[in-house]
């Protein structure tokens, strides 16, 4: 008997995602990923001043505000071939890494951990045992017995009042939940601590970005932060010293709590290293530019085919021709029309955003997301792609943290877990934690670079752009938390003539392309187990491993009865 399961989230962020799966014999046999909201932001931008585009595009998504701002100015700067002051790169790089850390911590603990962690089971835990276990894994100073006892009492209080608050909508007692009570208790304690720690990442973004959640400081040509060694009301050394303290707090948490926690969860769910493999062509871009032009980067990126690191082809600079020429988008299964017919694919500079809504058609159009391809093939983007590219490029810090993560999992699981386990649902979580360790080091490094450069007396943060007569085009790319983001702009006589955003969720969650080939979400969901179609926790695990912006509401459609069972999921 085939059951159809529809997961229809409730947010509009990045286009309100819905996932449908057909379940047969306890496994997913068919999957559809559908963006449920028309994203016509590109059309708003046409005719506007390219210097204003960043402020508008950062409103596309509530989770990824800064990333669109930064990608947009990079696109316009690429069109102008405008070099920016190196201080501006350092400040942007710190915003990028702080934002990324914020996103990773919140994603793991607050948006996806409860797919793996059973809060109610933590009530059975022995806090002393939990403390002994946690202390054996990490020097973190908040793993004491007292801390765990307090947390257990707190959960008991919530359960007693029948109000689990933020923990509502969990699949407590689901057969796919496998962590021992002590590990569940540790995870809940760290969930609460992560609420405190994530604020330090937010504070960094808001001090450097002049305002939060929507930063105010970027500009085509650099940043609008006047730097000063001592003056008030600008980015002073004193403020930067506060930033340094927050970086240290993030460093401690990411290395002593986040990475070990992911390893512990991974060790208890070994079967999930074999689920959710899907597309193993991986695309990422280099980020954290170290020079004004964007020809040297702290973190490498590029293209890997068929899970083989030997095929790695690096992307090396802003405006990289290999990247620029490789991207195109199809709309055969998306609710758009192309002038040249819907079997065509279009390069983003020639991209069209003309809606053509048809209703959800399993074999026809079913999504507001287009289907992007890289040299004709879909690609997976995100932390796993990023980590693999950095490993392929021989990036030492990435090697160090990836080895640490795999060694920890191997020793806990008492079996050798290799890199191949990363091509999976749980592997995407592990990669995100590995990348977070690399990024927190880079955040500190970019801080050092900024201070050293200020020390040399260079306080420049902005180069004024001038727009030529006639037509120019540029691409800005950015390795955002969820993967490769690119903005493509065509400017004519100083006004925007065309603008396209190819966002990470489009790469991963896009529908079948013009050749009928699925994107990453759909491909990764195939063969996913589903113990109970009315509680499709396993499907959520795989979808959440990509860090879709938010939680989902799940509706299960039973084909025979045509009955809609609403199940909420966090």
């Amino acid at each position, binding site marked *: 008997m085939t059951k159809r399961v529809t997961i229809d989230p*409730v*947010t*509009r*962020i990045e286009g309100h995602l819905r996932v449908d799966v057909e379940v047969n014999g306890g496994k997913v046999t068919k999957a559809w990923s559908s963006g449920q909201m*028309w*994203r*016509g*932001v590109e*059309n*708003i931008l046409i005719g506007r001043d390219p210097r204003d585009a960043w402020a*508008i595009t950062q*409103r*596309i*998504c*509530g*989770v990824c*505000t800064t990333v669109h701002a930064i990608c947009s100015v990079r696109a316009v700067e690429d069109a102008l071939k405008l070099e920016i002051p190196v201080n501006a790169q350092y400040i942007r790089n710190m915003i990028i890494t702080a934002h990324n850390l*914020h996103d990773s911590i*919140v994603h793991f603990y*607050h948006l996806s951990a409860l797919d793996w962690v059973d809060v109610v089971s933590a009530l059975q835990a022995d806090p002393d045992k939990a403390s002994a276990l946690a202390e054996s894994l990490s020097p973190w100073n908040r793993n004491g017995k007292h801390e765990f006892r307090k947390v257990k009492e*707190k959960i008991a209080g919530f359960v007693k009042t029948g109000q689990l*608050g*933020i923990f*509502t909508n969990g699949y407590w007692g689901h057969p796919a939940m496998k962590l021992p009570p002590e590990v569940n208790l540790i995870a809940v304690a760290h969930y*609460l601590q992560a*609420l*405190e720690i*994530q*604020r330090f990442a*937010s*504070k960094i*973004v*808001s001090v450097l970005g002049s305002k*939060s*959640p*929507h930063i105010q400081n970027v500009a085509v040509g650099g940043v609008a932060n006047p730097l000063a060694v001592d003056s008030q009301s600008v980015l002073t050394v004193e403020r930067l010293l506060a930033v340094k303290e927050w970086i240290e707090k993030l460093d401690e948490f990411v290395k002593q709590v986040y990475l070990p926690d992911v390893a512990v969860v991974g060790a208890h769910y070994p079967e999930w290293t074999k689920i959710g493999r899907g597309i193993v062509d991986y695309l990422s871009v280099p980020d954290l530019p170290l020079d004004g032009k964007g020809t040297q980067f702290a973190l490498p990126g590029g293209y890997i085919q068929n899970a083989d690191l030997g095929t790695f082809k690096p992307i090396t600079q802003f405006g990289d021709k290999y990247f620029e020429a490789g991207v195109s988008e199809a709309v055969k299964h998306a609710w758009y029309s192309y002038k040249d017919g819907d079997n065509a694919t279009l390069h983003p500079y020639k991209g069209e955003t003309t809606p053509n809504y048809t209703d959800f058609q399993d074999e026809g159009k079913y999504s507001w997301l287009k289907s992007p391809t890289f040299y004709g093939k879909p690609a997976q983007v995100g932390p796993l792609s990023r980590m693999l590219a950095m490993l392929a490029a021989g990036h030492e810090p990435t090697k160090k943290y990836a080895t640490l993560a795999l060694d920890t999992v191997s020793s806990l699981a008492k079996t050798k877990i290799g890199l191949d386990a990363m091509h999976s649902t749980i592997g995407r979580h592990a990669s995100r934690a590995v990348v977070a360790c690399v990024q927190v080091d880079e955040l500190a490094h970019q801080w050092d670079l900024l201070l050293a450069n200020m020390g040399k007396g260079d306080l420049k943060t902005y180069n004024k752009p001038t727009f030529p007569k006639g037509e120019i085009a540029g691409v800005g790319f950015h390795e955002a938390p969820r993967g490769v983001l690119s903005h493509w702009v065509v400017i004519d006589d100083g006004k925007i003539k065309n603008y396209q955003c190819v966002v990470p969720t489009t790469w991963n969650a896009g529908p079948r392309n013009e050749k009928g080939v699925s994107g990453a979400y759909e491909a990764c969901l195939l063969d996913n187990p589903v113990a109970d179609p009315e509680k499709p926790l396993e499907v959520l695990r795989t979808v959440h491993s990509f860090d879709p912006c*938010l*939680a989902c*509401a799940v509706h299960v459609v039973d084909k025979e009865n045509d009955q809609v069972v609403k199940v909420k999921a966090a």
Partner: protein
Amino acid sequence: MTTTPTIAVLGVGNILLTDEGIGVRIVDELQRRYSLPEHVLALDGGTAGMELLEPLEGLDKLIIADAVRVGQPPGSVVLLQGDEVPKFFRTKISPHQIGLSDLLAALELTEKAPKAVALIGLQPVSLDTGMALTPEAEAKVPEMLELVLAELAKAGVVPQAIEGIA
């Protein structure tokens, strides 16, 4: 150093989707027309979530402006108070329920929830792509702003109107 705010007026919504951005527009209008005392924070929250946790911790009063779906005719203005607000977000009718309900629940969990909450909402007329409010929603801005001011007044704050603002 600046005073820590004890009252916040938070506007949420997406300003690229016409009336969805009403909350942000209300906060903009409040700041444009009035000078607020230092302990009152006016915050354009956009569609953000956890980033807002810190500025909203330990408040005496939180006033939220937002687009809401309450089954009323488009353009209706509603005022919800106290317990109704978190309950309202739990039933998931607001377009931004995830961000806000998670946020309020997280504040609850860390024992830093606001002592009082009020929500001033507008049933949207349109959620199409576009940066301007519909004329119907635009016409409701003064009424919603009055409700925000009334909520501020209950908390003992009477903001000074800035002279010469139309």
